[in-house]
């Protein structure tokens, strides 16, 4: 037998395994609370949203709520929210990637990684009123950093056009929880880049740039994009931080929904539901993209 035939016989991929027997019901008990929570706090509210979006104030069926989504102030709310989500997803993504790179492949001391990951774990969950207050206390008109810059360096941020209560101020505030989230998500992906890939590339004549362009970045791209999509979703759904910081001055979708559902002047629950439904569609699209990208990178990296 030739060696070629030998390989053909001996190197067949493992045959597909027989379908496993169904698990006994008690094996599902552990994840029972998850399904219960998902049913009570995701499925039921979504169903309620979906139904409410097609009802008017009297409970009758209507498509007017969806038609109202094209009103200029609603379109503007979506547009501002998408812009702020994009800016903070890309900005936080790049910043977080650079930091994660520094502590994984950048040769920094191990304690820097420990410190960064601890900080990221805390900061990625630090949002809402406390975060808004922290930024007002530091970068508000009379914030500590603002005053130090003004008194010590003669730089008055607010005279230069900066305002914490503007689009860019809010974006800066969002970055505080966006880049740590990126650090947490992308660090394992960077750890997954095997040293042998770099060495193999160098051994074949590649420079560091060629290695990153042809190997590392294509491998990381699904993870980077996936992580940025998560950041986008994270910013898109943020409510308390923006409301606390700007008091509704910036027309975000979440703030408008809040006004429609519980506001005195703009009260229109049906429109609020329709807007929330629109958010669900956008978030679901983001999650689907994230899933597809993650599946692609996982397939490549299958052991």
């Amino acid at each position, binding site marked *: 037998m030739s060696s070629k035939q030998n390989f053909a016989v*001996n190197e067949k991929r493992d045959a597909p395994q027989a379908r496993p027997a169904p698990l006994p019901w008690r094996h599902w008990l552990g994840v029972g609370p998850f399904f219960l929570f998902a049913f009570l706090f995701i499925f039921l509210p979504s169903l309620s949203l979906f139904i409410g979006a097609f009802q008017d104030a009297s409970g009758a069926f209507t498509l007017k709520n969806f038609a109202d989504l094209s009103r200029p102030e609603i379109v503007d709310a979506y547009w501002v929210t998408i812009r702020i989500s994009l800016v903070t997803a890309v900005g936080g993504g790049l910043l977080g990637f650079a930091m994660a790179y520094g502590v994984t492949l950048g040769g920094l001391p191990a304690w820097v990684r420990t410190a960064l990951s601890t900080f990221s774990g805390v900061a990625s969950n630090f949002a809402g009123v406390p975060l808004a207050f922290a930024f007002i206390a530091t970068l508000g008109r009379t914030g500590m950093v603002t005053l130090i810059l003004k008194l010590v360096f003669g730089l008055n941020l607010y005279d230069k056009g900066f305002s914490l209560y503007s689009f860019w101020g809010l974006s800066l505030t969002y970055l505080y929880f966006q880049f740590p989230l990126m650090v947490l998500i992308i660090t394992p992906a960077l750890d997954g880049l095997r040293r042998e*890939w770099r060495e193999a590339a*160098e051994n074949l*004549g590649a420079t560091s740039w*060629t290695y990153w362009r042809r190997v590392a970045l294509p491998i990381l791209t699904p993870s980077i994009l996936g992580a940025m999509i998560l950041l986008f979703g994270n910013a898109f759904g943020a409510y308390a931080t923006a409301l606390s910081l700007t008091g509704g001055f910036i027309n975000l979708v979440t703030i408008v929904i809040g006004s429609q559902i519980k506001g005195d002047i703009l009260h229109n629950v049906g429109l609020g539901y329709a807007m929330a439904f629109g958010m669900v569609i956008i978030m679901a699209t983001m999650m689907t993209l994230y899933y597809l990208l993650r599946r692609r990178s996982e397939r490549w990296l299958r052991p």
Partner: protein
Amino acid sequence: MAFLTLTDISKYFGGVAAVERFNLDVEKGEFVSFLGPSGCGKTTTLRMIAGFELPSSGTILLDSEDVTYKAPNQRNVGMVFQSYALFPNLTVGQNIGFGLQVRKENEAVIKARVDEMLGLIHLEQHQNKYPYQLSGGQQQRVALARALAIQPRVLLLDEPLSALDAKIRVELRLEIRRIQQALGITTVYVTHDQEEALSLSDRVVVMSQGRMEQVGTPFEIYNYPRTQFVAQFVGQLNLLPITGLDLAAETCLLAGQTVQFEHHQSRQLSEAPRLAIRPEEFRLGALEGCNVLSGRVETVMFLGAVVRLRVEVGGLLFSADLFNERNITPPRVGEQIEISFPVHACWLT
């Protein structure tokens, strides 16, 4: 002049010597294996040849060119890694052609070379598959083709078969040797598997604790080990305490039974000299002109081609390997037997 020359190469990691004063000349087209246990410095030496580690001292000449401090991407040395290290985002064809693309070869040259390499490793039909769609053996052959595609001056293989199962390992071993001989490429192979090293190599370098213990052909390494480490690491070895040593008469007592040896084969003797005999030197029965020992069979292990006995002689236990033959009945456990070995087959250490 040798094609690859390592002169007084040493490598220290934080004051700890990984490799010390390593000297080696490799001829063009030669297949040399570094053999040794984990941590003996064989991979570090290979990585210094590849340029992934810089020597603490010494020089590396490749085709008369000093490459000691050259970057890995300027050496034109091909390397195959234990873990394949195929780029997961590229197809088989793209992996093989990677080095040529980096060199900015034109597409026609790349395609021709990729096709040639695929033919060499018998994977023509897998060109468009991704690494995850291949078996371990197939991935390692692609890694070999990728390393060869750039027509390297030296091919380095770092335990390339360790991650594969036994049968594939043997087959791929033969493939590597066939391809190496067909291309006449100078090859350095790192392994801790003595069978691999002995079966593949023109010469074997046995290493221990960062030092070169012995360099020689597989025949020399196995049959004429220069140090006790080599004798024990390469193949099986019985080391049996002796008494009544008479160097003039070239005799000693092994568990009270007289044994004759050839002193010129002996190594530098330790304070408590021992007799060294390989298990396969034993034969059942009392053979004329041989040393004969009487003992009791403690265990019998059937290993396929070999039947391994553990024999007790006056309180000493040793292994004896008998070639399996269908028409003989191996001794039974507890049986008293006589067992012989030639005078020239043992030495003192």
